[in-house]
């Protein structure tokens, strides 16, 4: 095989997932019958809403810890911040900032806990983080459903359940709804409609991207990349492996906390017991659809992923309805794809890693190696 052919196939194989999604979207968009201006508007809203959460996944991947399923811990911390701010009735940007300030220490503590647990389960970070999410979800429910209004002072009757303690299932965030999105109002006419841009949110996301670019070049960022390459080598090079891994998770958790606050200020309502559940799954699916793998992810992956994933999010139910007459099928298809894509990405990664490991072992044996192996 010649060189150009090989690189073409390699390129295709590397980007197989985004390509498949572009094809699915290309088929589904005309079927859904949505107008271009509607799609662009929806996409802009969703980029603003979700990008920050997805970006928070990048740093643990850099440190070789895989997809941080423990990011839901950060989301929960953010939600606690929002509940407290709603109780204190602080609105607007100050409310959001205060929610972040309340959420940060909680997220940091949870991050340290998560990092320490993951350090005890090296090689199983993802499944451990995933179960940890469920575990902390239990603790979160204990706090929000029983301790708030009883041990933790929450007095606003709009928030509390009628029994006097515990937070209601849905909390209206009317005070901070859209405050960041509408901080700098910009809109322009586009193909027969008017598209509004959540400029301030996008600026915050851009600032975050610059932070990540800058962070990669710091000493700490370089340490993390080294650990991502090889833990034993980093260890002998004098990098405190465990400590650095914990820092990576803490940063990710705190950022996920901010991400969830930005997400919820756009949504305007907090589903106290469900909002965080989906944050992790959808963010991870979007990142993988953007062409990232368990060990390699870039900022470009985030934005490609958020666009493709949410494009499908918007068009799949309508396309399903127009094609088969049942919106439900499109809905289930979307769920199937979200989970399927994570499964496939994990399989491809593990498969490749095992093959690489096998190849490395063969190369150690040398060319004269084992004749028995060749005979078999």
């Amino acid at each position, binding site marked *: 095989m010649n060189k150009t052919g090989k690189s073409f196939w390699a390129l295709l194989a590397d980007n197989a997932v985004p390509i498949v999604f572009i094809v699915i979207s290309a088929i589904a968009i005309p079927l859904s019958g949505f107008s271009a201006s509607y799609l662009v508007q929806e996409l802009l809203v969703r980029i603003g809403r979700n990008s920050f959460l997805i970006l928070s996944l990048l740093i643990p991947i850099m440190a070789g810890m895989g997809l941080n399923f423990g990011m839901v811990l950060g989301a929960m911390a953010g939600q606690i911040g929002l509940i407290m701010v709603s109780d204190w009735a602080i609105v607007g940007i100050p409310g959001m900032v205060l929610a972040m300030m309340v959420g940060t220490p909680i997220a940091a503590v949870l991050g340290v806990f998560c990092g320490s647990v993951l350090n005890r389960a090296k090689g*199983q970070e993802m499944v451990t983080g995933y179960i940890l999410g469920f*575990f902390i979800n*239990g603790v979160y*429910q*204990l706090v929000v459903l*029983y301790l708030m209004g009883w041990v933790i002072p929450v007095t606003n009757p709009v928030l509390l359940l009628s029994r006097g303690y515990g937070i209601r299932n849905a909390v209206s965030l009317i005070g901070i709804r859209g405050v960041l999105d509408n901080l700098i109002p910009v809109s322009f006419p586009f193909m027969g409609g008017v598209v509004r841009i959540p400029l301030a949110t996008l600026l915050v996301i851009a600032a975050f991207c610059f932070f990540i670019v800058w962070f990669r070049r710091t000493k700490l960022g370089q340490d993390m990349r080294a650990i991502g390459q090889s833990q034993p080598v980093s260890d002998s090079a004098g990098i405190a492996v465990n400590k650095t891994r914990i820092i990576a998770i803490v940063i990710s958790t705190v950022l996920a906390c901010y991400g969830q606050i930005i997400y919820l200020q756009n949504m305007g309502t907090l589903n106290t017991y469900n909002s965080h559940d989906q944050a992790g799954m959808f963010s991870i699916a979007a990142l993988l659809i953007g062409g990232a793998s368990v060990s390699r992810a870039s900022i470009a992956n985030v934005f490609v992923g958020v666009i493709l994933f949410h494009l499908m999010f918007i068009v799949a139910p309508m396309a399903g309805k127009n094609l088969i007459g049942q919106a439900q099928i499109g809905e289930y298809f979307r769920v199937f794809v979200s989970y399927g894509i994570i499964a496939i990405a994990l399989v491809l990664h593990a*498969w490749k890693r095992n093959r690489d490991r096998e190849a490395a072992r063969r190369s150690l044996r040398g060319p004269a190696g084992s004749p028995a192996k060749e005979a078999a």
Partner: protein
Amino acid sequence: MIKKFIENAGWPRVIIGLFLLGLFIAAPFVGVRVDTSLSDTLVRFGMNAVMVLAMIPMVQSGCGLNFGLPLGIIAGLLGATLSVELNEKILAHCAQYVDAAAWGAPISFASAIVMALPIAAVLGYLYGKLLNRVKGDEMMIATYVGFSSVAFMCIAWLLLPYKNPTMIWGYAGAGLRTTISVNGYWFHVLSDFLAFTPFGLSHLYVPTGMLLFFAFMAFLVWLFMRSKTGTAMTAVGSNPEFARASGVNVDRMRVISVMLSTMLGAVGILVYEQSFGFIQLYMGPFYMALPAVASILLGGASVNKASILNVAVGTFLFQGILTMTPSVINSVLQTDMSEVIRLIVSNGMILYALTRKVRVKR
């Protein structure tokens, strides 16, 4: 001696066991009937035990905890729905051999198992082949294989050409309902077999048939694990390199174990449904793996070692806590904390096992 017992049983089991005992002791003082609670615990034990048993083969062969249990459950659901769909034909066919009126329900239930097993075997085979490619990451991938297969089947349940009017949506005339009653087919077919209420306590219902069925399945697994294949499987789980050196086909053993786990999962959900009375489709099987995983770990299994005793002890403790906490804690605190306690205990157990494994390895 107490110290030795605690060491053998392990701290988590002792604590949870004492907690459960405390709940049973406290129950009468807060107005909860002990006999009803005990009966509920037994019923739930019987309902879930076979699904927990489905963990054993995969754990023993080193494939880790079977988070992909929903795959086996799907096979069971297919068997269950098919048995309801084809109920009349099957019974008409069997009527020439036996008395259909007396044997209708058992035959129908048996047909569900018979139809579920090959589906489970095929799915398990493919699933096992997949897991062989991803050694070291089985648990995470199993989770998502389970999830995506459940989501895929959501589409299939809508589209499959089932005709039985008790199963499909009335107004659309197509697509299966979210819950299908098995009343009139094989409701309580195992549970009520030889069921009795001992000591004249009318509230203490013992689902003998279901417990016997679990004992039978456990015996089969026990027998299998002592066969040549079973021993080889355990060897693969304990030390794959050593097993390969002794001439065991590692990949083949792993595939067999996954098939077995999936098939047990299929039978497990059928046992569950006949007691519960409903077939739960769509997102029903979604989170069913976690309680089963937590149960066997609570019983003292680790990520790569599990026994029948672990299954029995773990399921009893787990289901006992699930039954007792809502009633007792509810009466004491006037709130229902069972869901929160379930989340913390079950996931705490899984976390404990995942982090403990590494420490042992070092």
